[in-house]
Every structure is written in structure tokens, then in C-alpha cells.
């Protein structure tokens, strides 16, 4: 990271709806220094009366120069997320501080297998990894296990389906906790330890794992992986708090 992180002025360039509750915000950030898959930014909003508040949001796309993409899922009664998803207008300013993170980061040059486990909006930084792997034409195998409430809540659904079909060595497994699509053989419900064991590579293989989502989900999955014999030091975690299940 080159020097202290200042707050950078940014402007909304484009908003793409992802689901009924989530949108991707494309922000123009003059002087953006670039970033790595997995990193996030702090977003600061300041009202006319000077009141300001900040939240963290993951970078959803690999580094593409002076625009960054965030995918925000609305939390009912939330202070910041409903504003970002619904009200921020094209051209409106926000401030960004980042890129943040040197541990929860992934590189397409890693030679090892990568297991990604996402709960809800925790898929956002993992999507940056899936996309970076695609753009780099990386060959090392990657698996994404994505737990989500219903088919309507799947972020990036079409792109994930396409990548899973076309990107060699990439597997996508979506599991539904509340309602599954018609014809899904899996009963709805939380990801179990046995299921993680069957979807993950055996613990004897060299695997680097990234787990992201609501705090309870991440704690559960990380605990399950350790119980399955995964090395604690090869599991990287990022917790979003109560949100995003």
C-alpha cells in the first residue's frame, strides 16, 4: 500500500440492479490507486449539516483503472445501505477510502486450489476473485459454494451460471436455505458440515480457503472446515456483521 489512505472523492457513474434488494454501483474515482481481489473500501457519506457516517463495502470487480464496482444489499431500516441501493443518484458524490486489506486478498498467480464459501452478500469479494481468475485465464482450480435464501437472492446469477459452464476448472455450487428452485434435489436448509465436506476438496489437498458473509455464517463454516481437518492457517475469513444472510 503506497502511503496513507486518504478519503477520495467519487461519483456514481452507473447503477445496475442485481436482485430486488441489491444493486451494483459503478463509481468513478479519479486517482484510484488500483486494488486486489478481496479488498474493500470504506464509504463515507456526509450530510449538509456536517453529520457523517461510514461503512465498508467490498470491491466486486478486479482492478479496471479509475472506476470501481460495489454491490450493496439493502438492510431493512439500515442507515446507509438503503440510501446507496435506492437513492444515490447518477453524478452524486461519496467519499472512498481504500483499497483496504492485505490478508483477505487473492491473486490469480497462486498455484493452489481455491475454495470460496459465501453467505449472502459475502459473495461480493469472492466474485472479484472469480472474475480476476477469468480475466487472467488462470488455470488453478477454484470452487465457489454460495449459500443464499432463495433463487431470487442470488447475486450475479447469470454471470455465475455462465462462468461455471465456460471457465475451465471453475465450479459453482449454489445452496438455498429457505426456498430452492423447482427440481433442485437438495432439501432447503443451512449448509451442513457433511455438505461442506462433500463440496470441498479433501483436507489432505493443498487448498486456500476464503469464507465471507454474515458473522454467524462465517464462524460456522470456518469451524466446520477446521473440524473437517482443514488447516486454520489456510482459511481466510471476512465478517460483514449481522447483514447479508
Amino acid at each position: 500500500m503506497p502511503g496513507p489512505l486518504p478519503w477520495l472523492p467519487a461519483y456514481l457513474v452507473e447503477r445496475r440492479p442485481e436482485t430486488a434488494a441489491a444493486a451494483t454501483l459503478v463509481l468513478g474515482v479519479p486517482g484510484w490507486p488500483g486494488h486486489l481481489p478481496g479488498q474493500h473500501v470504506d464509504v463515507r457519506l456526509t450530510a449538509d449539516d456536517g453529520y457523517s457516517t461510514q461503512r465498508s463495502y467490498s470491491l466486486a470487480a478486479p482492478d479496471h483503472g479509475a472506476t470501481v464496482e460495489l454491490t450493496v444489499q439493502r438492510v431493512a431500516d439500515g442507515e446507509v445501505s438503503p440510501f446507496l441501493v435506492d437513492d444515490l443518484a447518477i453524478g452524486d458524490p461519496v467519499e472512498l477510502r481504500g483499497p483496504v486489506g492485505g490478508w483477505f486478498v487473492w491473486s490469480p498467480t497462486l498455484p493452489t486450489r481455491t475454495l470460496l464459501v459465501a453467505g449472502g452478500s459475502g459473495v461480493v469479494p469472492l466474485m472479484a476473485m472469480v472474475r480476476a481468475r477469468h480475466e487472467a485465464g488462470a488455470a488453478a482450480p477454484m470452487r465457489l459454494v454460495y449459500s443464499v435464501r432463495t433463487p431470487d437472492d442470488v447475486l450475479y446469477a447469470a454471470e455465475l451460471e455462465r462462468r461455471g459452464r465456460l471457465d475451465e476448472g471453475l465450479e459453482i455450487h449454489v445452496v438455498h436455505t429457505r426456498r430452492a428452485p423447482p427440481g433442485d434435489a437438495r432439501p432447503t436448509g443451512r449448509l451442513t458440515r457433511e455438505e461442506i465436506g462433500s463440496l470441498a476438496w479433501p483436507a489432505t489437498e493443498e487448498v486456500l480457503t476464503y469464507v465471507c458473509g454474515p458473522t454467524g455464517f462465517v464462524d460456522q463454516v470456518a469451524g466446520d472446515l477446521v473440524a473437517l481437518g482443514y488447516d486454520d492457517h489456510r482459511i481466510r475469513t471476512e465478517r460483514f456483521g449481522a447483514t447479508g444472510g
Partner: protein
Amino acid sequence: MTDEHGEPAPLDGNGLGGVLGAFLGVDVTDAILVCDGCGRQQVLAALVVFGAGPGGVARCRGCSHVMLRVAEIRNELVVDLRGTTRLRLRRP
């Protein structure tokens, strides 16, 4: 923030990366800290954090001992490391 049972849901040390990086100029989320309470070694990103954004309190994931307090107060960063025996940083 609270979870579905009304209990506050902690974040982790990743959320402190912004405020620390803003003042220190290096990412410290992969710094290794040794807990004064139980001796466990862990990266800052893995600590249990209440707060974040402009500051927070970070606890050991093994024994819940408070290891780090961070506060941004106007133009100052205040870091209280009581509870941390050792902090190891890699050269950037």
C-alpha cells in the same frame, strides 16, 4: 449491529484496516499479534471486533481477552495495545 437473536454481531479485524491504513500508511490486517491472555498467535484480520469504521475494540479469538483498541479522534489515531504481547509486521 445485532443478529437475528438481538445479540450484537461482531465484525473482524478486516474492518479496522481502513482507519489503521489511513494513519499508518501500510496495511496491518495481516500483522501477527500474540495475545497476552492465552498466547495465541493470530492475524489482526481474524480478531473479534466490536465497532470498526472510525474505531473499535478487538478481542482474541481464542480467549476473548481485549488485545487492541483503536480510535480516530479528529486528526489523531489512538491505539491502545495493552493485551498484546507482541506485534509482528512484514516489510511492505
